[in-house]
């Protein structure tokens, strides 16, 4: 267990700078989740932490020791590779116990450990197989098992559950959470699964193009995105961005919305809109804040009900997404599957702006901070 400091780390491949000065510091026992669009440099950062890639500039500190030039095996890190990197010549069992063997753990202890991990990952029946004889998800679990068998200072997980089915993924997620609770090991974890990010992380780092856009708790990131990119990236379905004119009503700046009718929406921090009266800003509103009218919200502040025209509906099991157009922007609304919303019909929807955010249209900068 150790803290981790990534100090202005840069990484170049030839001319191209892949990491452009990453600064992250994690406390001992913290669970950090890295998210970001494909190709933004997450795996590269993980590799740099592990010492598998040289960093071109900057320092990495683990447990307050500068390990920038320490060889990987002395960093005491366990990692799940995005590409698995299983030892093809070893059985599943050997793959899992190899790391322990290298750390001179006695045979009996290793066996116990392998059994434990294999059960946890539900691969006990595969212990004698070679990687080539496994399915994709099974391979991924072996990769996972290899890391979990060890007790390092730091775990690095690079999309460890991406090829598992939903059910298994939930189970694994729970196991990881338990493990983290029990051992308190510092963990850095890359995932594309929003739910994984939200439920596992102590803090989330949102990356883009080799830079950290925002670093904060899941709730901060979700409710208080630092900029347009973070706002749009986190949350699934994504936040709706509606270009809206700022109009002044009774001295308070409001946001004008044209659906079937035109309404002005109130905004919790109207003062931040002062300078924009008469101009257009981007209003960020998550789909779950545009729902069928909910009686218990009725009358709350910042809740506005208006008509919209349904363009498409998308049933998703627990909810149905309703697509519509507001201020010429396509937006997603989330409704109860039983709320009648035929494509083409005009229905009532409730806009809840209590958690809305606004951005400058050009710069993408958040206005209401």
């Amino acid at each position, binding site marked *: 267990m150790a803290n981790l400091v990534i100090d202005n780390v840069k990484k170049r491949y030839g001319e191209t700078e892949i990491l452009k000065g990453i600064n992250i510091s994690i406390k001992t026992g913290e669970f950090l989740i890295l998210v970001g669009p494909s190709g933004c440099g997450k795996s590269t950062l993980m590799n740099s932490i592990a010492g598998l890639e040289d960093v071109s500039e900057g320092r990495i500190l683990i447990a307050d020791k500068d390990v920038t030039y320490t060889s990987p*095996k002395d960093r005491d890190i366990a990692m799940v590779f995005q590409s*698995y*990197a299983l030892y093809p*010549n070893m059985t599943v069992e050997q793959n899992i116990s190899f790391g322990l063997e*290298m750390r001179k753990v006695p045979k009996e202890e290793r066996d116990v450990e392998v059994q434990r991990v294999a059960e946890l990952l539900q691969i006990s029946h595969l212990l004698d197989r070679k990687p080539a004889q496994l399915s*994709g998800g099974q391979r991924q679990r072996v990769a996972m098992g*290899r890391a979990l068998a060890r007790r390092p200072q730091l775990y690095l997980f690079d999309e460890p559950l991406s090829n598992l089915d939903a059910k298994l993924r939930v189970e694994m997620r729970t196991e990881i959470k338990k493990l983290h609770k029990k051992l308190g090991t510092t963990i850095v974890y890359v995932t594309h699964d929003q739910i994984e990010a939200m439920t596992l992380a102590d803090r989330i780092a949102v990356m883009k193009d080799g830079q950290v856009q925002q670093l904060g708790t899941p709730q901060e990131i979700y409710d208080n995105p630092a900029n347009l990119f973070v706002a749009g990236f986190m949350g699934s379905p994504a936040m709706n961005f509606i270009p809206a004119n700022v109009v002044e009503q009774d001295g308070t700046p409001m946001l004008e919305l044209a659906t079937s009718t035109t309404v002005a929406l109130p905004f919790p921090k109207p003062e931040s809109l002062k300078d924009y009266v008469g101009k257009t800003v981007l209003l960020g509103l998550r789909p779950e804040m545009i729902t069928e009218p909910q009686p218990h919200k009725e009358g709350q502040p910042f809740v506005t009900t208006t008509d919209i025209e349904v363009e498409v509906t998308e049933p998703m099991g627990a909810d149905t997404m309703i697509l519509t157009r507001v201020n010429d922007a396509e937006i997603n609304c989330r409704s109860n599957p039983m709320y009648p919303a035929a494509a083409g019909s005009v229905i009532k929807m409730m806009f809840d702006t209590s958690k809305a955010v606004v951005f400058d249209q050009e710069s993408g900068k958040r206005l209401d901070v």
Partner: protein
Amino acid sequence: MSNKAVGRKTSGLDKALRVALYTVLIVVAAFYLMPFIVMLLTSLKDVEEIRTGTLLSLPASLNFDSWSKAWSSACTGGSCGGISPYFMNSFQIVLPAVAISTLVGALNGYVISLWKFRGSDFFFAAMLVGCFIPFQVILLPMAQTLGWLGIANTTSGLVFVHVVYGIAFTTLFFRNFYQSIPGELVKAARLDGAGFFTIFYRIILPVSTPIIVVTVIWQFTQIWNDFLFGVAFSGFDTQPVTVALNNLVNTSFGGKEYNVDMAAAIIAALPTLAVYVFAGKYFVRGLTAGAVKG
């Protein structure tokens, strides 16, 4: 992955192709075998038959006299022990030389492709140039070097020479094979706490069988069949079997005993052939299958 890949094909065209394939393989095999058949037939004939018969005529009777003569009683120069006494010499040279050069080559290849350092590629290129130095020019300086080292005309000296001029090839083979091993494997093992040699021994070597086979075939053949170094750097009691074979072939007692020559040649080749047959089993597929995704 299983390689049963493409389904049971039963169409006529496929069948025809298959027949054609076998035909080609067999015809080519016949071409390869021809000199051997000539040698074999000759070794079974007696001198008179060789003189009178044609190349491919069958021997009148199966006659292994020439074989036993080649093995144990043919004369070369002052001694008449056949080529058998020289077998041991050859083995004493070949086994350590093959083992050392293969191991060194594997390690070099491993470093050059998976643990690159500044200059390692350049060095590799420089080393390859070594493959093209004609062995004849290094005879004299090497003799001098061996003299300095005090291993001139000894088995160790010969082993040394063969290792020195073998590693360029073994390194080449291994390096080029390791190019296709996913680098992630090494990364994973380093994180698991394995060191340089452990990774080599536990991860890399086990997937190297095909190339080990090829390298051993090459080195074994080269060293076993080497004449130039064998004759120039051996002592009178460490001469390898090729020198004996050469003496035997160039020795005649009124009319060449081709049958004995041929028998000796075949006998001398048996260890190498044994290596081919034995090693062939390890031409296996897909040792790195399932290692990485992508």
